C-alpha cells in the first residue's frame, strides 16, 4: 500500500507538471492577451505595458517564471482585478463551495433514495413517473429552469429573493446572517439539485437493478432474511460501490463553481470570476485557477481509489 502511494504521488506530480505546461501553452496560444482588448491605449503604450507584464517574452520563459513563483507560493497578481490571485480565491471560492456542497449532498441523498425505490419497484407506476421526471429534468437547460423559478418564486410570488447571497445593505450577523444566506441560496440549490439529480438517479437505479438480479440477493432472500435487510445491507452496499469513483470527480466540481448558476442567481462565486477572466485574458488568474482544479482532480481520483479499497477489500492496489 505504501509503495503504491509513493508511486501514485510521483505519477501525480508528473501529470500535474505536464498538465501545467499544456495549460500554460494553451492559454498563451489563445489569440489576444490582457492588453489587446484595451482599444483605448496607443500602440506605444501597449508595447510598454507588455514589457512591464512580461507578455512579450517567449512562452517557455514565461512558463518558467510562473512555475518558479508558484513553487514559492506566489500564484501571481490578477491583472484585471488588481489583487493577488490567492486572495481572490479566498474571496470567492467558499461561496461556490457552500452552494456546491449543499446541493451535492442533497442530490446524492435524493438520488439514492429515489434510485433504490424505483429499482426495487421496477416498472411500477412510481418508477415510470420517476423516469419521466428524470428525463424532463435532464432535458431542461439550467438557465431556463433558473429564470423560470426566479419569475415564479421571486418576482411574482415574492417568496424568495431573485439573487445574491444576502439582502443588499444588510448588516445581519450571527444567526440572522445564516438565515439570510439560507434564504438566498434556496433557489440556486433547488436548480442545481434538480440538474444533478437526473443522471445520478438513473445511475443508482441501474446499479441497484443489476445488484438485485445477483445470485447472492436471491440467496439472502431464500435464507428468509427480512426484505429491508436484503435491500439495505446486501444490495445497497454493493450498488453504491461504483459510486465511489464518482465521489472523486465531485471534488473539483465543489470548488470549481457553476458558471451558469452563479451567473443567473448573481451568486458571488468563483465560476463567474473565472468566466470573466477568460474574456479578459487575465492569465495569472486563469492559470492559477486551472492548476488548482487540476490538482483537485488528481487528488480526487487518488482519494476515490483509496476509498474503493477501503470499501471493497477485494480490490488490490
Amino acid at each position, binding site marked *: 500500500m505504501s509503495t503504491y502511494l509513493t508511486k501514485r504521488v510521483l505519477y501525480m506530480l508528473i501529470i500535474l507538471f505536464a*498538465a501545467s505546461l499544456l495549460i500554460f501553452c494553451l492559454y498563451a496560444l489563445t489569440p489576444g492577451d490582457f492588453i489587446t482588448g484595451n482599444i483605448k491605449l496607443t500602440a506605444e503604450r501597449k508595447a510598454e505595458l507588455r514589457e*512591464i507584464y512580461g507578455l512579450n517574452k517567449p512562452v517557455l520563459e514565461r512558463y518558467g517564471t510562473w512555475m518558479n513563483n508558484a513553487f514559492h507560493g506566489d500564484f501571481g497578481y490578477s491583472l484585471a482585478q488588481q489583487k493577488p490571485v490567492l486572495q481572490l480565491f479566498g474571496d470567492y471560492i467558499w461561496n461556490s463551495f457552500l452552494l456546491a456542497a449543499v446541493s451535492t449532498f442533497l442530490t446524492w441523498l435524493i438520488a439514492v433514495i429515489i434510485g433504490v425505490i424505483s429499482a426495487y419497484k421496477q416498472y411500477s407506476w412510481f418508477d415510470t413517473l420517476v423516469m419521466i421526471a428524470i428525463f424532463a429534468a435532464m432535458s431542461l437547460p439550467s438557465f431556463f429552469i433558473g429564470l423560470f423559478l426566479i419569475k415564479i418564486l421571486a418576482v411574482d410570488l415574492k417568496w424568495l429573493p431573485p439573487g445574491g447571497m444576502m439582502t443588499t445593505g444588510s448588516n445581519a450577523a450571527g444567526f440572522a446572517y445564516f438565515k439570510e444566506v439560507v434564504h438566498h441560496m434556496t433557489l440556486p440549490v433547488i436548480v442545481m439539485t434538480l440538474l444533478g439529480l437526473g443522471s445520478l438517479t438513473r445511475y443508482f437505479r441501474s446499479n441497484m437493478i443489476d445488484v438485485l438480479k445477483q445470485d447472492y440477493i436471491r440467496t439472502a432472500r431464500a435464507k428468509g432474511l427480512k426484505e429491508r435487510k436484503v435491500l439495505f445491507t446486501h444490495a445497497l452496499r454493493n450498488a453504491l460501490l461504483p459510486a465511489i469513483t464518482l465521489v472523486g470527480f465531485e471534488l473539483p466540481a465543489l470548488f470549481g463553481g457553476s458558471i451558469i448558476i452563479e451567473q443567473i442567481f448573481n451568486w458571488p462565486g468563483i465560476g463567474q470570476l473565472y468566466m470573466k477572466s477568460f474574456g479578459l485574458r487575465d492569465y495569472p488568474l486563469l492559470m492559477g485557477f486551472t492548476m488548482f482544479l487540476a490538482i483537485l482532480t488528481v487528488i480526487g481520483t487518488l482519494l476515490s481509489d483509496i476509498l474503493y479499497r477501503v470499501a471493497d477489500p477485494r480490490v488490490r492496489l
Partner: protein
Amino acid sequence: MRKSTLLLSSLMIAGSLLLSACSENGNKDTASTDTPANTAATADPNTAAAGTAAPSAPAVVPAGALSEPFTATDLTKLPAAAQKRTDTIIVGLTDPSGAFTPYFQESGYDGNVSSLLYASLVTVDDKGVPVPELAESWDVSEDQLTYTFHLRKDLKFSDGSPLTADDVAFTWTIQYDKAYDGGSSLPSLKVKGSEAYKAGTAQAIDGITVIDPQTLSVTLEQPNATALVTLGSNVLSKAYYGKDYEFGQLEYIKKLHEKPLGDGPYKLEKFIPGQEVRFVANENYFKGKPKTEHFIYKTTTGDAWQFLETGEVDYASFPATEENIAKLKELGYVNILPYTPSTYGYMQVNLKHEQLSDKRVRQAIAYGLDRQSIYVDAAEGAGAVANIPASPISWSYTDEGINPYKYDPEQAKKLLDEAGWTVGAGGIREKDGKPLSIHYLASKSKNSDIFIAVAKENFAALGIDFQPEIFADFNSLVSKTESGDYDLVSFSTSMLTDPADGFMQFFDGEIAGYDNPAFTELYNKALATTDIEQRKAVYKELYQLFNDELPIIFTNYKKTVYAYNGRIENLSVSPFIGLAGSLPNWTLK
C-alpha cells in the same frame, strides 16, 4: 497507471469544453461594451441631431418610442423593499473588483466606484465642455503650452486632511513613473521633463511647478486641447498614497486599493467582493455633504429586470427598444430617461487592401448597406445611423454638409462601376481578373447575426462576394484584426469625452494606411486651441472630410433608457461622467 492517463485525458477534454463555454460567455460580457450597438433610435437620425445642434438644448436625445423623460404614474406600486428605504439608494453595477484607486484600476466598473470617491479638478458638462470642480479656475498661456490651475480654498480629503497643489503634483508625477502600469492617458501627454523623470535622470518633473498651496502649473511640449481634462482628473492624497513612494516602486499602492482615501461625495464604507460596494456620505465634500446618507452599488451580472421588479435596485439601464419602454412604463413606479452614450459604432476598413483603398468602393459600401434596417429597425428603435466620428450629444456634433448615405443600391452600383469593378461571371464584380470580395470580422452577438443576414443580401445585390467570420470573444477578434487578415471589422468606440478622442485611432497605428496630410493638419489645428468655437469650426471640417473619405465606415449610435425608482428626485445622467455628477443631489421623496 492506465486509469490515470485516462483520467488525465478526460480532464483535458473537460477542460477544453469548459474553455469553449467560457469564451462564449466571456464574449457576451465584452460584447456589450465593445461591439456595436444593441440599442435604439429615432426613425430619422436627423431629428436626433437637430435636438442637440442648439447649444442650449438639453442633453436628452429622443430614443425610440421615448422622446422625453417619463415620470412614474403610480408610486403605490413600488415594491415594499424599495418603499422601506429611507436613507439608502441602490444601483446595480456589473463587476467592481476592488481596485478603487483611480489611475490604477483596469475595469470601468471600478471607475464607476472611484468616480464617487474622488472629485476631479475639472469636469465636463452634459455636452462635454470642461467646467470647474476642485479647481476654481485655470489659465492657459498664449502659446497653449502652460496650464495654471487655481484650487478652491479649504479643500479636504474625506479624513479631514487638506488637499493642496502638492497632492495634484504628486498625482501627475507618479503616472510618469517607469513602473506605472495603469491605463491612464496622462502618460501619453508630453509634459516637459516627464521623459527625463521616467528615465530616472531627473528627481522631479520639470514642467510641473507648485506655485503656492492653491496654485500649480504644468507645461507641455506641444499644445493639446485634451490636456485640460486629462490633467484635471482625480487627485490622490500625497500624505496617504505617497507615503511609501520611491521612484520605480509602485507595488505598495496595490495594498491601498481596497482602502481608498478620496475627496468625492461619498466615502467607502465596505466592499464585499462579488456582492456590493457600500458608501456613506462624506461630510468633508467641498460641495457639502450629499443629501442621501447611504449609497450602494450592488453587483449584478444577470438580468437587471428582476432586481428592479423586486425593488432590490433603484436604478437600471436598458436598450431603448419599444418593448422595453412599454414594459417599463407599465411598471408604473419608475421614471424613465432616454439617453445616447458618447460612443459611435464603425467598421474598420483595411485600407491596405487594394479594393478598399479606393474611396468610391468605401462609399459604395456605405450606400449599399441598409444600415437603417440593421441598426434601427432590427433593434426595435434602440439605435440610430451614424455618419461622423462623434456622438449626437457632443458639443462638436453637426450634420451640416454631412452626407447621410441613405440606402441607395443604385448609387452604390454606379460608384463601383466608376471604380472599375465590373460585373463578371457569376454576378461577382471583377477588376483585372480579381473578384471583389469582402472578408468581414465581428464578435458573436445578436447584432452581428442581424448584420450578416442583411449584409449578405445587400452585398449580393451589389455583386460583392461577402465572407463573414465571427469570433467567440473580443480579444480574438482584435488579435485577428491586428494580423491584418480582414477587409472590414465591426467595432464600437469606448466613451469619448473630447471630440479628438473620436479620431485617436488614426494616430496610434491602429488604422494603418490612412495617410492624409489634410486630416493631420486639421486634427492638430483642433488640438492647438482651447477655444471651443474655433475647435467646433475645425471639427466640422474634419467631420465633413471623414464623411466624404470614409477611412472607416460609420455604422450606428446606441440608444438606452434609464429607469429609476420614482421616489428619487434631482437625478440626471451625464453622457460623459455618468451619474456621479448629479448623485450628491439625489433625494428620496
